[in-house]
């Protein structure tokens, strides 16, 4: 755990990776403990962001020459997260119109 006292903590890759782990764990905890669908979506967004942060960090610290694949991946992650949120909310609103609830407990039967 000596990375915290490393000289130049903002230039240390491990600090970004540990930060990403914390964000990812917060996302997992959110997904596991919520019953509200929007709450689960919030957790998924956090996890995706942790992944994107890792991509950017590796792109910055792993390549001496200019290789921006990590940035491109992060952009794809961001775009796909937006797409996922749109579809999830469309489904959510359609479900809410029928059942008047967004709790996962109430959406357990298949036939509607």
């Amino acid at each position, binding site marked *: 755990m000596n990375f915290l006292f490393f000289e130049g*903590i*903002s230039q240390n890759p*491990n600090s*970004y*990776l*540990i*930060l990403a*782990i*914390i*964000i990812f*764990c*917060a*996302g997992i905890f*959110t997904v596991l*403990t*919520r*019953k*509200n669908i*929007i709450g689960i*979506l*919030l*957790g998924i*967004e*956090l996890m995706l*962001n942790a992944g*994107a*942060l890792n991509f*950017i*960090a590796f792109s*910055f*610290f*792993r*390549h001496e020459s*200019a290789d*921006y694949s990590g*940035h*491109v991946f*992060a*952009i*794809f992650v*961001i*775009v*796909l*997260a*937006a*797409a996922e*949120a*749109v*579809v999830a*909310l*469309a489904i*959510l*609103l*359609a479900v*809410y*119109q*029928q059942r008047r*609830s*967004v709790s996962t407990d109430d959406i357990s039967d298949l036939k*509607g």
Partner: protein
Amino acid sequence: MKDGIFLCIAAVTVFGALVTAFSRSIINAALGLLLALVAIAGLYIFLSADFVAVSQILIYVGGVMVLLLFGIMLTSGGDNIFSNNPIMGAVPATLITTIFGLLGIYVVNTSGLTFYQGAYRATTRDIGHFLLREYILPFELVSVLIVVLIVGAGVMLRKELVIVRQAPQKKEGKK
């Protein structure tokens, strides 16, 4: 100075993520997520990724968060934001989260990757080159995905799709 700013932004990120994880009010959780997303954009700037940082703010704050807030405001109605959002299964969730966290820290500490000192550059032009040369296929696939998405979201919210079970009404004859 730089380290101080980094620590502040990291603290804000962690705070936002923890609020998202532990807050029982769904609107506060969404606010925590907003805070975390903006702070992560700040972290991207530390990693010389200005274009990605601005995209993060444009898409997450301007698009995803607005959608999520729309969803929250339209579905929970303000009065039952607490009741439909219980903390359930806290013990197994804590266990799983702890295992994941320890695993991640173990991997980071024993990865054995060699790291270089990153350099600060203007990235916009190079990202454009990468997107249109090496990653042209995923780029085009994403555009197809977005078209599918627009059509799908439109179809999903159409009125006719919401099935209302009721007997077909008899036509009233003219009297």
